């Protein structure tokens, strides 16, 4: 399963000794890792380990207290959040963060924000000045994303009334609309049943393999993590305790203790033979 991504390729993302403190709480301590171009990279770890905090540092919500984050070779530690979309980072949120009163379509169109050029000066006289053309052009691309994620039937629905699973999908669509090089997914499968997880897994794989996006994912479902990630990092109490291929990481006794608990029925799922 291991990725064909050799180390020769420069990593798309590199965290260097990132630490993050909130008052007395040490959310992250000296975390370093690299995400290679084109891979699916997962972060796992117990609740409160600092996974979301790490993603927040990458997407700019939080600024690391110490350390640096490089993206595509450039240091983005101090780049403001709003500029990271243009840099090429998109994300979804652990607790849904859609624009509840907008339609699904508009939600996704907001994802195009940094790609659109026409502001209010030219937007107000819509028919003159090309705003209309631009809208149509992007609408076409957005429809492709909608098709891909199979949410055609709700494109005009108000996002706030959708069921949980659909909202998650819309959120993914919105992140994809950004045309990111790296997409950060914070527990994309939480709250989904098996079937939906399967769908979501398929979307993620497609994004990765066909749309060419690098994926950084936080997920608690070990089945998913095992199956679709190339490499896994484990955080515990804000520190990196392991990194490597899924198999290697899950075999690590430290990880088993901290994250999965002693080998018993929870883990036996993962130990089952996988029909390939």
């Amino acid at each position, binding site marked *: 399963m291991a990725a064909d991504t050799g180390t020769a390729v420069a990593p798309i993302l590199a965290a260097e000794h990132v630490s993050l403190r909130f008052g007395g709480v040490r959310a992250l301590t000296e975390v370093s890792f690299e995400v290679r171009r084109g891979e699916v990279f997962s972060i796992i770890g117990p609740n409160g380990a600092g996974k*979301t905090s790490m993603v*927040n540092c990458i997407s700019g*919500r939080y600024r690391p207290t110490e350390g640096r984050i490089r993206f595509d070779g450039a240091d983005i530690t101090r780049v403001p959040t709003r500029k990271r979309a243009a840099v090429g980072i998109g994300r979804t*949120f*652990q*607790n849904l*963060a859609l624009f509840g009163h907008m339609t699904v379509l508009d939600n996704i169109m907001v994802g195009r924000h940094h790609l659109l050029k026409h502001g209010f000066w030219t937007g107000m006289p819509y028919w003159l000045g090309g705003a209309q053309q631009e809208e149509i052009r992007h609408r076409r691309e957005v429809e492709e994303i909608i098709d891909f994620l199979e949410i055609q039937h709700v494109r005009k629905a108000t996002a706030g009334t959708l069921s949980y699973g659909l909202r998650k999908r819309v959120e993914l669509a919105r992140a994809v609309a950004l045309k990111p090089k790296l997409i950060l997914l914070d527990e994309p499968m939480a709250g989904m049943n098996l079937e939906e997880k399967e769908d979501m897994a398929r979307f993620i794989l497609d994004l990765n393999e066909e749309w060419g996006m690098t994926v950084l994912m936080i997920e608690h479902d070990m089945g998913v993590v095992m199956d679709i990630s190339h490499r896994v990092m484990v955080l515990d109490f804000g520190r990196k305790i392991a990194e490597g291929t899924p198999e290697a990481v899950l075999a690590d006794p430290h990880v088993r203790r901290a994250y999965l608990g002693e080998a018993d029925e929870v883990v036996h799922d993962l130990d089952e033979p996988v029909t390939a």
Partner: protein
Amino acid sequence: MDWSLLLQLTLNGLIVGALYGVVAMSFVLIYKASQVVNFAQGEFLLVGAWVCWWMLTEWQLPFWAGFLFTLAFMTLFGIILQVVVLRPLIGEPVISVIMATIGLGIFFQALMKWIFGVFAKPFPPIFTTERINLLGLEVQTVYLLSLGISVLIMAGFAWFFTASKHGLAMRATAFDQQVAQSLGVSVPKVFAMSWAISAVVSAVAGVVVGVVNGVSSALSFYGIKVFPAVILGGLDSVVGAVLGGLIVGVLENWAQYLDANWLNWGNMYSIAPFYALILILLVKPYGLFGTKNIERV
């Protein structure tokens, strides 16, 4: 520099400011329970003052009886308002509720003028010694009394919100009504309680101001004065409200001093608190004591 005048002005500011503080507290109470900014706060003062005045002059009740009646009336008033107007709005966006309080304000302002006329009416004399000399400043006895009341009310509020379970329930309701309900909190009851308390406390202030200046619809201006006070303190802080009130009171008086001696613009007394408000917000977006929103994704 005229130190004795400045001292007197400061003292005067503190005394009036304490009253602002009382009104600000009752304002904060509603905010804490429902995130609603009550634009009818001034009208609560007004209604309370008129009712008390009515009891004292038309029914010739002794002050204490009229005052107690007023408090009872205002309790009822707050509850009825809540039941009739605000309960149907539970679950609606906060701005709708705010707008409803604006509607209430407009309504009661006009209603009071309609019933009681537009002329300021004096209270009968209540205290045998009408004023007391405090560090060279002649102060009305009621004002001093109100100072005592403010301290009491403030202590009561502080206890209520941190130690009592109803205080907690109120905060929970403000945060998320659905969650509060799921915990067994009756949102309507919480609101009724907060409106009743708020109405009563404002009425106390209304009566005090009425005794000092006479009752007129201008009393409702306290409802506006309270904004700089609560913002300075932070919308959801009881202690902040009182401090904010005191600051605004002193500020007005100092502004008057500045104006009379140097600027001669003639408007600083009334406008200075608003400049202060803007300045404070630029430095501290949540006022001096307000709690910051939690921004976590």
